[in-house]
Structure formats: structure tokens, C-alpha cells
């Protein structure tokens, strides 16, 4: 992709700006689609129809929502810490957006082809916590403060299972670069890491239970990273009105919303790249190629996003201490066991 662009433009800065703007365009388009999807899936689960009037069956509603948020009055509470209050949404979004740099959308497009892709993802998704804490603290509202603190505790403790699951995938494939991991799984559905990886049958069958467990735990931890039900204490609507972003309105609220959905996509994208074959086609060489790669990648991630939406509208919320219990006492020990087992199998078989 870089070479292609270098043939057109000569200026390096322009190329960099273009390369980094592509995910932004994608995020904006994706957010409109996912808002509509969430609205309709949640409505049909609840036996009701969502918006039907704006556009055919409500297709234009996300645009209307975004326009409404942009037109709202910008309120800053009187006693709020003005600098932090203004900065918080942008830090959250910037941290989420930074993660898009190392996601391989296709075999020819990856924002930054660095050898430490997985590590970079873990690092930059931790920055989101800072933005949330800033929002909670600077709102000068006890409820926002509680929401922000809960969120910090939650995100930090769910970094561990995420990191361990990513480590397991890295250990199997041998590289932290997500592009390499995806190429490792290329060639058809039987090569995906969730089914054991492209190994001979005995090794695959031995690895299979552990990779499935790792996939499930990574999925659960990624829901927790994004603050979605059942882990949505920081924005528990019934308790804290809107949690850490109660006091936000208008464009800042839109930034938080945008970063929540962008984060949703990026954690699904990470799970897909690591375990579900990334941009590789499940049929091997049929329907594969650079452009098909984008299609497969976006479809698989989007299916995981829909699964997260489905879970959100089914389950109640977990309490803070139970959340800690799940993370530290359930997810982490199982992942340690999986790591040991996977390492052992890889060495011995």
C-alpha cells in the first residue's frame, strides 16, 4: 500500500496522513452502521420495532443522532476542572484510535508494520483508562467519580486476561506482529488458531481445547475492556445515570460514544486477527486476495460485534467485587493453565 501511494504522491507527509486517515474514515462509516445495527437488534430482541420513520425502516436515524449531538449546547459544569474536562474525550478517542495502527485490515494494508504489534495494542488500550478517570474526576460529580474509579479498576484488572490470551496466541505463532499471525493462519478455516492452528493433526487436537478456552476468555475480557454489559458498571444507567460521562453533552458526548464503538470494533478485530484468521478466507484460496481480505476481516469482526450486542441485551450487570472475582480468580488461573499446556505441547510434540 505504501508503495502504491508512493507512486502517486512524492511527499512522505502526505502519504503518512493518508494512511492514518483511512481508519478514521472507516470508523465513521462503521459507527453509522453499528448504531443502526444495535438499534435494530436490540429492538427485535425486545419484540419491538425501532425507528421506522427516518428513512426506510430508520436507516437515516444514526445520521440524525449524530447531527443532534453536534447541535447540542456545550455545557461545562461550573465547578468542573475545565482543562481535564475538555481533554478527557479526546484522550479516550486518541488512545482507541492509536490501536487501529497495528491492525491488519488486509494483506496489503496495515497502518504500521511494527514487530511489536500485540504489545502496542495492550499499551495503547490502557491509555483509555486515563481518559475515563479524567472524565470522572473533572465532572465534579460524586456519581461520575464513582463511575470513573470503578472503570479504572475494571479496565486494569481485565488487562491481565487480555494480555495472557494474546501471549498464548503469540506463543503459538511465534511473532507479535499481527500481520505475521494472520499470514500464519492463512489457507482455510482449518488453519485458524481457534481450531488449533496449521499443525499436523495430533498437535492440533491437543491444542484445540486450550485455544477454544483462550478464545472464549479473550472474548469475555474484551467485552469487559469496552465497558459493555454485563460489565458496564462505569456507565451503569440505572445506578449512576450515565456514569463517568453524566456531565457531558453535545460533541464531547459524541466523542465518548464514538470511542466506545471504535473500541468495540478494535477489540473484536484483535480477537479476529489472533484467533479467527484475520483477513484470510475460510475457503482457502477461493475468494481470497487483497480486496477480499478486507471483506472477510470486516465481516468477521462485525459478526463478533453483533455477538457482543446480543450479549448486551440479554444479561444483567455484574457488581464491582464480583467483577474482580471473575477476572482474578476465574479468567487468569484458567489462562495460566492454558499457557502452560500450550507451551508444553508446542515443546514436546
Amino acid at each position, binding site marked *: 500500500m505504501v508503495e502504491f501511494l508512493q507512486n502517486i504522491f512524492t511527499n512522505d507527509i502526505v502519504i503518512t496522513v493518508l494512511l492514518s486517515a483511512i481508519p478514521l474514515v472507516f470508523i465513521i462509516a462503521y459507527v453509522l452502521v453499528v448504531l443502526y445495527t444495535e438499534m435494530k*437488534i436490540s*429492538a*427485535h*430482541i*425486545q*419484540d*419491538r*420495532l425501532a425507528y*421506522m420513520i427516518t428513512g426506510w425502516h430508520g436507516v437515516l436515524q444514526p445520521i440524525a443522532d449524530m447531527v443532534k449531538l453536534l447541535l447540542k449546547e456545550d455545557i461545562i459544569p461550573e465547578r468542573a476542572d475545565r482543562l481535564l474536562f475538555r481533554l478527557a474525550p479526546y484522550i479516550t478517542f486518541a488512545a482507541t484510535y492509536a490501536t487501529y495502527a497495528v491492525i491488519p485490515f488486509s494483506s496489503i494494508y496495515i497502518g504500521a508494520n511494527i514487530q511489536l504489534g500485540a504489545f502496542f495494542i495492550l499499551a495503547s488500550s490502557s491509555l483509555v483508562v486515563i481518559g475515563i478517570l479524567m472524565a470522572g474526576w473533572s465532572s465534579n460529580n460524586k456519581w461520575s467519580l464513582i463511575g470513573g474509579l470503578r472503570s479504572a479498576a475494571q479496565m486494569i484488572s481485565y488487562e491481565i486476561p487480555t494480555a495472557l490470551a494474546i501471549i498464548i496466541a503469540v506463543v503459538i505463532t511465534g511473532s507479535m506482529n499481527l500481520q505475521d499471525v494472520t499470514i500464519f493462519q492463512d489457507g482455510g478455516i482449518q488453519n485458524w488458531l481457534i481450531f488449533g492452528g496449521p499443525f499436523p493433526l495430533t498437535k492440533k487436537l491437543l491444542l484445540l481445547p486450550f485455544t477454544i478456552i483462550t478464545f472464549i476468555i479473550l472474548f469475555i475480557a474484551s467485552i469487559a475492556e469496552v465497558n459493555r454489559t454485563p460489565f458496564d458498571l462505569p456507565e451503569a444507567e440505572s445506578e449512576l445515570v450515565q456514569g463517568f460521562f453524566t456531565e457531558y453533552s453535545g460533541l464531547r458526548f459524541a466523542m465518548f460514544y464514538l470511542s466506545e464503538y471504535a473500541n468495540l470494533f478494535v477489540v473484536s478485530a484483535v480477537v479476529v486477527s489472533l484467533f479467527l484468521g484475520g483477513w484470510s478466507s475460510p475457503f482457502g484460496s477461493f475468494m481470497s486476495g487483497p480486496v477480499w481480505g478486507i471483506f472477510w476481516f470486516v465481516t468477521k469482526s462485525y459478526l463478533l460485534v453483533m455477538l457482543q450486542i*446480543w*450479549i448486551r*441485551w*440479554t*444479561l444483567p450487570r455484574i457488581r464491582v467485587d464480583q467483577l474482580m472475582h471473575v477476572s482474578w480468580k*476465574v479468567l487468569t488461573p484458567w489462562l495460566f493453565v492454558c499457557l502452560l499446556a500450550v507451551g508444553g505441547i508446542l515443546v514436546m510434540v
Partner: protein
Amino acid sequence: MSAVATYFKNIFHALYTVLVGMKITGSRLFKRSVTIQYPYVKKAIPERARNRLYVNIDDCIGCNQCGMACPVDCITIDTIKSTPDVDLGMTSKNTKKRLYIAKFDIDFAKCCFCGLCTYPCPTECIYMTDVYEYSEYERRNLIYSFATMTPEEIEMAEAKLKQYEAEQAAKKSAPPIPPKPSQPSNPSDGSTAS
């Protein structure tokens, strides 16, 4: 049960119930929704529905039974007695109307739709319709006036009543007319004088 066994049991129970829940919501995803697209489609209202009141003012005899029965005092009725020479007509139940209805206001901002006013009406002129879409922008537009008398008619009726009452009062307070002196009668033959 040992702690280890409870630990594993909890995990599997958690996963199982989550999957059961997801199955229920997932299956409802493909069933038909129950929403109807109001205001393009409206639900049928049963015939006993208690919504906005209507008064057929031609049948109203001005007894104020409905006003007295209302628990929130939303019905205001002002009547003017009619003089005997005026014929106000008959109601549909064939009773004679004797009162002019100067004012019959129902304040729908206060009405609690209990229906208590419809039961005591002797002519059944006040009844509940099935109209429920009558929102207004101003609260004073919710005061419905059912009386049809213009202010001039009211003035005329009041003036007439006053005049009639003054006449009645004058009749009562005037000295009694002495009886006509009778002709001296002839007691002997019993025949009356011509």
C-alpha cells in the same frame, strides 16, 4: 461440596444460564414484533372505553347532577330559570325543559375520566366518547363549553327573568283586591237577584 467443586460448578452453571438466556433472546430476534405503527395504524377501542366526554346540550335539563357527582369539580353549570310563557322544548326522553343553560363548561385538564357524571344524568345527555387524541398547546383550550347561548341571549333571558320575578313580587305585595259587593238578596222567596 468442597470449594473446588463449587468453583467449577459455578463456572459451568454461569455459562449454561448465559447460553439459555441468549437462546431465548436470539429466538425472539426472528419473531414478529408486537409494535403497531401509530399514528398510521390505530388500535380498536372497545365500546365501553371512557375517554373524552360529550354533552348533547339539547337534552340537558340543567339539573347539575353531573356537576355534583364529579369528584374533581370539573363541570360548571349556570342556569337561568325560564318564564312560564317560554317553551324551551322537550328532551328526547319527553321531559319538559325548564331551564336555560347559560354555561356548561367541562375542564378536561381536571377531568379524571371516572365516569361518575354519566350515571346520574336523567336524560343521558352526557356520555363518554372514544376520542382520546385531543391534546392542546394551551391549557385554556381544554375548557370545553357546551352551552350554545350567546351573551345577548343570556342577557335577554336574565332580563326577562328579572322582570317576571319583579311582577310576581309586585303581585304578592299589592293589597288584596276586596271581593265584589254581592247584590242584596231576597231571603223570602230564595230566588237570586238578576
